């Protein structure tokens, strides 16, 4: 620690800047076992200086385990970590940082009530006057500003973390790693929590960091981003390197490498045959937890046999809209009608029982009870009605046989139906939720973020199930912050921005146009938010599109 603090001293700054030794990293035969599970099986990877090396693999493939060994959080059972031709043993992240390796975790390691500068100083505090001395906040601040200027990463050193949007928090994490003077940065699923715009910003940051000689290990399962940014791609499956690829490899090929079989990224579906209007929302007004208007006069209609997709950047009222429909949030004004029956004011149980299936957006928070078995989770909202039981008792044999059926039908990978759901992978947990909600006759199926944190193989399956439900004449409402998902699934797309539906467009609308709508850009020039400077033509086209669609949406 002492030398590192010295290195950050202004006196030594010159010396430390001239220390632009590019870092070459080699992992040789890394093997890690957890009991009988081989999480990493003789993995060899070389990261050249100044490259973005993408580590591609499904959830549970062993990417994070590998990186945790590289960062000193876990120790490999076999194999070597070689930095600049020198074998290293990392007992803790401190060792890794000392060798120039930094990591930004998927779940940020920040203290919400501390300022940016305090968070960045945390763990490497400048202390004056011995171990019980006082913190040198001023110097911490100065360092933050310096680093953020040097790398072009704007952060406000005095802002509280809890007030910052996720994208900015991530920048803080990156700045924090960079103040530790690292030359190789591990980014663990950095885009999982970002909006499309924030993702683009992050990719630009990554590019500029590599131009400054830093190398980046980019862990992800998102193929588009990999193709956009990576210089080299290593694909990991079941703890083994199954191939390396160049960014020119097609998405389908990459997906096939990742999953181990050919997968279709497009959703196979026939044109919709919309029937009667099943869900009708009129003038809906809903507040969020803080009492701030989240849904501000939404009119919607979902017809039988169609998928209505709601596109929008997270936090524009989609969550509150769906929760209001489900009776989980108070309806301030407006009506929600299911087949002309008003749902507003009914209990969630009544709404579920009247033929609505609901997949909540936050699976582990709202979707499953992790301690419960697969079988129990499969009846979580039907436990007291036939055939699984009545108001008094449960029919355990019916519950068990139901579980057996659903596990087979929805391809839920678990040892047995008595396994606790918390031990399943994200994709399989999501299949449990979907299986539960689809296993009764439905009029309306609502899925929020149906494939968030789900591996490619399961995404394909879940999308197929949603289309299947639609084809049976169910009205389907899909909310997703992934534009690709909405475009692939929906028959009509409603774009939501700041609590309003800005427009309802067809999925054939150019993506750029939908993207602009998601950023709140409609025909009124006054409302135009800053856009990329390279797209005046598209902007005009989008305005036209949005304007026409906007009329449709508000009529």
């Amino acid at each position, binding site marked *: 620690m002492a030398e590192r603090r010295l290195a950050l001293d202004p006196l030594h700054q010159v010396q430390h800047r001239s220390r632009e030794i590019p870092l070459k990293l080699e992992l040789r035969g890394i093997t890690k076992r*957890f*009991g*009988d*599970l081989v999480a990493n099986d003789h993995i060899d990877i070389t990261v050249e200086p100044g490259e973005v090396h993408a580590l591609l*693999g*499904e*959830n*549970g*493939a062993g*990417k*994070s*385990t590998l990186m*945790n060994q590289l960062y000193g*959080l*876990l120790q490999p059972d076999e194999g070597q970590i070689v930095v600049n031709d020198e074998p290293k043993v990392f007992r803790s992240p401190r060792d890794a940082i000392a060798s120039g390796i930094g990591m930004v975790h998927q779940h940020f390691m920040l203290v919400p009530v501390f300022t940016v500068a305090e968070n960045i100083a945390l763990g490497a505090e400048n202390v004056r006057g011995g171990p019980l001395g006082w913190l040198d906040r001023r110097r911490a601040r100065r360092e933050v500003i310096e680093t953020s200027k040097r790398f072009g990463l704007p952060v406000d050193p005095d802002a509280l973390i809890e007030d910052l949007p996720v994208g900015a928090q991530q920048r803080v994490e990156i700045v924090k790693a960079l103040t530790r003077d690292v030359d190789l940065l591990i980014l663990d699923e950095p885009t999982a929590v970002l909006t499309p715009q924030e993702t683009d910003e992050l990719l630009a940051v990554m590019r500029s960091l590599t131009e400054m000689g830093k190398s980046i290990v980019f862990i992800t399962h998102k193929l588009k981003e990999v193709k956009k940014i990576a210089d080299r791609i290593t694909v990991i*499956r*079941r*703890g083994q390197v199954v191939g390396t690829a160049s960014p020119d490899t097609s998405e389908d090929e990459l997906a096939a490498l990742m*999953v*181990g079989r050919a997968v279709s990224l497009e959703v196979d579906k026939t044109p919709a045959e919309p029937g009667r209007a099943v869900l009708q929302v009129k003038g809906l007004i809903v507040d969020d937890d803080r009492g701030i208007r989240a849904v501000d006069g939404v009119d919607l209609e979902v017809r039988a046999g169609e998928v209505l997709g709601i596109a929008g950047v997270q936090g524009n009222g989609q969550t509150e809209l769906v929760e209001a429909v*489900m009776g*989980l949030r108070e309806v301030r004004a407006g009506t929600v009608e299911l087949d002309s029956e008003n749902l507003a004011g009914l209990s*969630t*149980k*009544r*709404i*579920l*029982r009247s033929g609505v299936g609901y997949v*909540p957006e936050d699976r582990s*928070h*709202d*979707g*499953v*009870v*992790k*301690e*419960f078995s697969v079988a*129990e989770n499969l009846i*979580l*909202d039907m*436990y*007291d009605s036939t055939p699984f*039981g009545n*108001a*008094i*008792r*449960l029919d*355990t044999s019916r519950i068990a046989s139901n579980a057996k059926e659903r596990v087979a039908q929805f391809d839920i*990978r678990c*040892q*047995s139906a*008595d*396994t*606790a759901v918390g*031990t*399943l*992978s994200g994709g*399989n947990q999501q299949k449990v939720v979907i299986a539960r909600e689809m296993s009764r006759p439905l009029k309306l199926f609502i899925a929020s973020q149906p494939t968030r944190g789900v591996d490619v*193989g*399961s995404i394909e399956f879940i999308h197929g199930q949603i289309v299947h439900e639609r084809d049976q004449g169910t009205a389907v409402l899909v909310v997703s912050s992934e534009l690709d998902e909405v475009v692939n699934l929906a028959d009509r797309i409603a774009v939501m921005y700041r609590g309003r539906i800005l427009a309802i467009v067809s999925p054939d609308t150019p993506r750029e146009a939908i993207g602009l709508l998601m950023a709140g850009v409609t025909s009124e020039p006054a409302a135009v938010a800053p856009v990329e400077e390279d797209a005046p033509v598209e902007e005009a086209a989008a305005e036209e599109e949005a304007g026409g669609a906007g009329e449709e949406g508000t009529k």
Partner: protein
Amino acid sequence: MTAEATTEAPREPEQKPAERETLLTAFQRNLWASNGVTVTTLSIFLAVVIGAVLIVLSDSAVLAKFAYFTARPGDALGSSWDLISAAYSDLLKGAFGDPEAISAWFSGTGSWQDALGPISETLTYAAPLVFTGLSVALAFRGGLFNIGAQGQAVLGAVTAGVAGFSFGLPIGLNLVIALIVGALGGALWGFLPGLLKARTGAHEVITTIMLNYTAALFLSWLVIQQGIQQPGRSDAISKAVDSSAQLPSFGGALRVHLGIVIAVLVTAGVAWLLNRSAFGFELRAVGANPHAARTAGISVAKTYALLMAVAGGLAGLGGATQVLGTAHALTPAVAGNIGFDGLLVALLGRNRPWGTLFAALLFGALRAGGNRMQSYSGISLELVTVLQALIVIFIAAPALVKAIFRLRTARAAGQSASPAKG
């Protein structure tokens, strides 16, 4: 599939050994794994060891021998051993029976009362603890920390006691009514904080603690009121419960009464409620993840209120057992400490119904044995309290037990403890 690889690893081997594994190998594998049973057993063992040290430390005669330990270590060790073994054997004899008395009974020279007395004492002490333990355990499974078992037990004792000497119903019916009224009294005292929690979000720990005081002071006030107080007595004691409302004891000379049988039946009932009933499903879902429960249409507020009423009813039954089975009259201390001991019993029983029953039996045994240890070996009854506390401390800190005995981390735990994600 990759997904498969991850889902196969984290299993709960201690509960569900794979089919191809024989029972014996599974047993051996799990013996030193950090599962609940092993940790509980070792916790008890550790508490006994530390208790032994305390026994030695509290005896000045033995301590004096340690002064010349280097010269004659045998003296100090020998007398320590004698003291410890005498104390613990008295504890065991007091809890489960004196082998001499039992063989005397078989050979016809002793009475069966002497032989079975210790067991009777154990069961007598255990019976109310089963109820209060179940009360805490059930509430805990629903995500509520019922500190109020004490107050609920007190109120159960009050209502059961008053019903016991007021109604004068025929034999049998009088007892049933008194028990029901006792359960209802406790249920009311549990329902209040449950309702407050459901309606206003008031934390049940705070409200139940306050209601504990209220109940205790109410009892102290009540027993000296006219019509309640025993005529002709100036101290705080109520009229005696009619004999028709008393829990019948088995054979006059022993204190053990029907309460323990009811306790076992109620344990079975709670086990059914928890695992097989719709309400049990609701409360477990609410306890494990209230958000998911709400999303699935379960009314969390209703579950909380009802659960606290049921938990209160159980504790109330505990108080009723105490007054109808042992005390036979209300005094300010009629419920003793059964509510707070119930917290420990539930913790020791890992909030499972049958586990709670066994934990209550253990606590009853310690209490009964402690009495004998005090009168025969002269070791303070407080040592028993220390033992109980130590057991609970070790159970509450399983990492400590694991570290002391270097237990293998169970595979399931190992997986989730590792920071690895994928």
